[in-house]
């Protein structure tokens, strides 16, 4: 079987300006939403108390809210988690949470309120996170993405050239920002596993970009004919089958995880699914387009030769 019998001949760079414009708009919307709406941060970031409880039969959420309100927890957020029988309860951080025993006691108290109404309640998970930990994680997450980008920039600069390095970092940042933007726009809970997913997608997107760059470098070196636009187009077309197959197959696994992996991996697989889609698109368009706009030329990629002395005397 072979889906791509012939090497396609799309004129990618011809549309680069238009599509880059779209990318810029998409990034701007994401940044806007992140700035205005922010993210639906999970307990890892906000601190507070989280209880996952299982019921014998489908739980009545409004009755639960009522019970918790009567029990002295009017701020509790109650939602289904995966199935109708599993319920997630979140309490915002309270004053004095840094107190050594607050979290454990609070969890037991909330559970007691629930058990008073239905003794069959099973506690599946309790998490208590103090506000201090939340702050640390946020700074840590941002720091690690930045550190990764800087190191990658340096690596690609050494292996390729600064125009490519900028393209790679821009496309990677684009993917991370747009994926985070989607979490912001659709208000999907953003927890530690999503951070892991975004960092993983930084790796994946880069992987994709480097494969395309690799071919551009190859073609620049091996052929003398053709404008940079033609060489870039040819390189993308030649790697297109690989790019699409790899993304398709990886998406296959991620979608399996999304559907069957359970609620705890939901955020992770959602982020990866979007991330891989954007990563594929951005390695074709954002990374190469930026290098193209920066006027990458065969001379940039030639192995360094000693400058020949030109005798321009008559």
């Amino acid at each position, binding site marked *: *079987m*072979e889906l791509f019998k012939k090497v396609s001949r799309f004129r990618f760079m011809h549309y680069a300006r238009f599509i880059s414009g779209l990318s810029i708009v998409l990034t701007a919307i994401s940044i806007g939403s992140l700035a205005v709406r922010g993210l639906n941060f999970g307990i890892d970031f906000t601190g507070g108390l989280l209880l*996952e409880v*299982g019921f014998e039969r489908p739980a009545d959420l409004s009755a639960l809210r009522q019970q918790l309100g009567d029990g002295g927890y009017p701020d509790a957020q109650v939602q289904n988690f995966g199935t109708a029988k599993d319920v997630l309860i979140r309490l915002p951080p309270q004053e004095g949470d*840094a107190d*050594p*025993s*607050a*979290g*454990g006691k609070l*969890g*037991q108290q909330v559970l007691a309120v629930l058990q008073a109404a239905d003794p069959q309640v*099973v506690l*599946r*998970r*309790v*998490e*208590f*996170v*103090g506000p201090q*930990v939340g702050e640390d*994680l946020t700074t*840590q997450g941002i*720091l*690690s993405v930045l*550190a990764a980008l800087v*190191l990658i920039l340096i690596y*690609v600069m050494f292996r390729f050239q600064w125009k490519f390095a900028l393209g790679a970092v821009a496309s990677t940042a684009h993917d991370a920002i747009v994926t985070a933007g989607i979490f912001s726009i659709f208000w999907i809970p953003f927890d*530690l*596993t999503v*951070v*892991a*997913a975004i*960092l*993983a997608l930084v*790796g*994946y997107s*880069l*992987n*994709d970009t*480097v*494969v395309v760059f*690799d*071919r551009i470098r*190859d073609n620049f070196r091996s052929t003398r004919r053709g404008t940079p636009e033609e060489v870039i187009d040819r390189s993308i077309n*030649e*790697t297109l089958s*690989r790019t699409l*197959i790899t993304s398709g*197959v990886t998406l*296959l*696994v*991620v979608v*399996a*995880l999304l*559907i069957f*992996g*359970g609620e705890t*991996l939901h955020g*992770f697989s959602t982020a990866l699914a979007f991330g891989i889609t954007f990563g594929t698109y951005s390695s074709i368009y954002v990374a190469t387009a930026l290098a193209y706009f920066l006027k990458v030329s065969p001379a940039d990629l030639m192995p360094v030769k000693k400058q020949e002395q030109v005798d321009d005397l008559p």
Partner: protein
Amino acid sequence: MNQNPWWKSALVAAVLLGAFLVALPNVFGEAPAVQISPQSGARLDQGGMEEVKRSLETAGVAFGSAYDDNGRLMLRFDSVEEQLRAADRIRESLGQSYVVALTLAPRTPGWLTALGLRPMSLGLDLRGGVHFLFQVDMQAALQQRVDRYATDFAKLLRDNRIRRDVRVDGNVVRIEIPDPKDADRAEKLIRDSDPQIGLERRNEDGAVILLARMTEQQIRERQDFAIEQNTVTLRNRVNELGVSEPVVQRQGLDRIVVQLPGVQDPAQAERVLGATATLEFRLVCADANPVEAKRKGRAPIGCELHQDRQGNPVLLQRRTIVTGDQLIDAAQAFDQGMPAVSVRLDSQGGREMLDVTKKNLNKPMAVLFVETKRERVERDGQVIEVPREEREVINVATIRGIFSNNFQITGLDVTEARDLALLLRAGALAAPVYKVEERTIGPSLGQDNIDKGMQALVLGLVLVVLFMGVYYKAFGLVANVALIANVVLLVALLSMLQASLTLPGIAGVVLTVGMAVDANVLINERIREELRNGNSPQASIHAGYDKAIATIADSNLTTLIAGIVLFAFGTGPIKGFAIVLCLGILTSMFTAVVVSRTLVNAIWGGRRLTRLPV
């Protein structure tokens, strides 16, 4: 063309075989088990294990296979009923000096265990348990030290008859010397008592003010000490819980992670972790006969009956010389070549000790370990918590000389000295700790996570294998072998390193599969391209691999950088993900490049081919 020397193929085969063997323990799952360890948190040696086993056999307790798990005796059972029944009997027959815990043990066959092979260790999110993150109050740790400096300096100057006014002002000890003539002498005394301390001198209204503050290095040392000490203390307390594979680790500058797999009641765990232990130094009632007293059940006037660690009776005077809160530090040491424990007391404790040792030369003195536990008891139909004190004489030694705040306890062997120093230090926390994070994962959720994660993983793998086989035909099958070899290698590495596999770790495996597929796709697409360009099959294989390898190396190395950064900055689940990702990149590079090439060479190498099944 495309032929490997035989040894190269043999080497690849050997690596794969080895990996298969190391990964093998993971297929057997877990069996209900009972874990037995000594109460004090010590390890059981070979002799101790045999003894416990013998005593169980004589008591008629039937157990399945038994083996040593890091100084603990593990007994495996076929069913939960058997496990519970046996645990009750074991508790009965072994008594108070052992911790008997219910746990799960890998069902690994004996010959694999004998080879030192173990399955991957699973993170809390996969098997259930409690996770605590404690924050050490460093400010309090420093304040304690500064306060102690103030008391020491005040005493020093008083002993040297220098008029002074010593106050603590935040992190600074402010010493006012009203008479400037004393200033030089005071400064020298303080400097001599602690040459490292930062000392600043000021004149104010005719008086001299000395400002003593800890140097950066002293602060760092003090903080290091506080966190190390707290880690030791918490670890000792965790051992009391009898949890198998507990984790007590320092994290960062001022935090301690405690993970208790299998524990479901965080309240109980917290009770034990928050227990208090202390020490008392007392004189022995040397004139009375302890065995006699025990038999009568009555101690002479002024004396109290206690037990030592072996259960022998000891008579101690009621009066306590020094209590544990006066103890500053204890360390294992050597005194004239003999093992010893060197102990430091604060100034008040030192004075008491001086007084007592002066009067009681050559008489025995004992160290009594007092621990307060909170216990749940049923009283009048209600469950309440009551404190219960446990006392034990841990050491009796003869007073050989007069000493005050610095002395040594001798007459111990090396292990005893180490244990005693540990116990002395482990008694109390060096600085208060606050719980900043607590996570409890129920066992049903843990099992759920494993099942779903594995299901998704297997399904994803099957889909990938099907696609590759259909799309790349025989070369797809080679890629599939490489893909499966990759998963086996990854599992083998994770089992070998005993890095915990967490939920994000499973996600890391998924991503690794993606990377491995990518490498194989790159190779096969390249081979197809070479064929399209009109190259011969053998040349196409050769060129396809060569060109793809450069690309694979570049793309994987960039991902590896991202993985390493994750590992360096991340904590907990992110770190788990990063480990799997980094290892996965390495194994997928190896399998895609080396394993699949070896296979391709073995099948098609050195033959005359007209077309390739790709």
